[in-house]
């Protein structure tokens, strides 16, 4: 593999990991809200979360561009006040990936939270645990397999994200050129087939490792919970 290819692989891993870890707390909070609470606008929130799943990725990327771009309202605010810049940076790629993976993350976590017996949660409440502690000590451990599954889905989605990323942060080698972007580039130049093929193999390997890892982790947790 060429240095250019290695850079794209490393960048993709960084972007996908960042996207997954950064969206996890938000995903947990929103999944919990959707699973356990009734409030005004719940249907709207549910729709919003699922939007990236049904919109064309290019549309999501364009929406990000006009929201988080350097001169767009939110983008300018974040850049001026916190020094956080998304446009044409790898952080922007992570943002795009996180948003594209978010529906998968929330869906998996929500289902597993709904499977946790609320009677156990109220029992924890009677023992003196406030709602936050109940979540941390009862709900979270019991829905952990679902959280891991959701995180892996989000990671896999991030590794493969192309449309929203390239629309939002373009295809800059070393900064925003992720694995799919580079494969796309290779297909556009003469003699790029070998590179595209190598990266395809790498992509398959990473996806399978992630899936295998999540299976093992989920099984270990499952065994621990059921163990005598």
């Amino acid at each position, binding site marked *: 593999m060429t240095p250019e290819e290695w850079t794209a692989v490393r960048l993709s891993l960084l972007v996908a990991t960042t996207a997954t870890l950064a969206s996890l707390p938000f995903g947990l909070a929103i999944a919990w809200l959707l699973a356990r609470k009734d409030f005004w606008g719940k249907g709207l929130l549910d729709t919003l979360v699922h939007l990236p799943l049904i919109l064309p990725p290019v549309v999501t990327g364009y929406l990000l561009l006009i929201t988080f771009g350097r001169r767009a309202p939110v983008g300018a605010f974040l850049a001026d006040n916190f020094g956080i810049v998304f446009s044409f940076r790898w952080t922007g790629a992570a943002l795009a990936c996180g948003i594209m993976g978010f529906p998968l993350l929330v869906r998996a976590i929500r289902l597993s939270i709904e499977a946790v017996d609320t009677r156990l949660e*109220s029992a924890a409440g*009677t*023992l*003196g645990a*406030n709602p936050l502690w109940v979540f941390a000590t009862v709900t979270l451990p019991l829905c952990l397999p679902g959280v891991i599954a959701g995180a892996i889905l989000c990671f896999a989605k991030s590794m493969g994200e192309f449309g929203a990323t390239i629309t939002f942060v373009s295809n800059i080698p070393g900064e925003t050129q992720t694995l799919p972007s580079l494969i796309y580039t290779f297909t556009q130049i003469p003699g790029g087939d070998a590179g595209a093929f190598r990266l395809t193999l790498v992509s398959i390997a990473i996806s399978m490792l992630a899936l295998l890892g999540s299976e093992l982790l989920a099984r270990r947790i499952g065994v621990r919970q059921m*163990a005598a």
Partner: protein
Amino acid sequence: MSLEIDVDHTRGSFRISARFSAAPGLTALFGRSGSGKSTLVDIVGGLVKPDRGRVAVDGQVLVDTERNVFVPKHLRRIGYVFQDSRLFPHLSVRRNLLYGRWFNRQAAATSADLASVVDLLGIGHLLERRPASLSGGERQRVAIGRALLAHPQVLLMDEPLASLDEARRAEILPYIERLRDEAGLPILYVSHSVAEVARLATTVVILTEGKVTAVGPVADILSQADSGDGGSVLDAIVSRHDEAFELTVLTSRAGELQVPRLNAPVGGAVRAYIRGRDVMLSLKPPEEISALNVLAGRVVTVVPANSGGQAEVRLDCNGDGLTARLTAKSVQRLGLVPGLPVYAVIKSVSFERS
């Protein structure tokens, strides 16, 4: 400690309207399934917010809808033992037991208590196991221990024995008695079993379709016709064991009773529960009959039952109350009227240690 409840609550088409106050000791909420017992306990536990009313434990107000007070359940210091135990499946028995300690401000004082609670409930050998591997009886004992170690001000027990078979029940009942007598903890105990209530309760509250229909000491309430099978409770002392016939002889105010050998020490207190339909009445001292137990008394009242051609005859046996359930025809044939001396033949007794 005292427990004061005065609440109204509507759940779907079912309406609860309950008002009572309970003396220290074990208060049994007694009634058929669907009479609102569990909802009432959930209200005390903070799992259900009543539409209207007031709940106070020991003068401390937990709920007062008029003053907009609703103490959330994690601040109530209640120990709630659920019918389905609700142990945390991802924690060992030890960590289940200590769960409440994380949140208790007097945590420092509890390290010694784990040992005493484990000892009280006989669960020392289970500490490192997971709830999934425990039997129903073991699970319920761990659930009781977990509730106790949260240092509650009041213990709520919602049919803690309902999911268990007879043998397991017998295993746990003594522990609940010890809690009532040794731990000095006020207990609100839900049950639909007369035998359990007769054995455990200090005060009985009878719920019928969401309403309190009777409140009072166990012996008074259980002898009332509307409390189920109209049985009587007699407090007695073990006076001796008759090993040759495997019998135990008890002394109560009403007289001497002989029962199948009890595993209780001489001088120990027992509480006997006699169902109304297990009592026959005779106008003369019965002779040459198989029943061992015959008590002399006087008729106090004759209460016709609502249906079925039956009647409850309440007797005064030297100060102890005894109720017989007879057919209306027998009442008429014997000419039973208040004041008439009669002999009660007791066919069968459930004798419970107390």
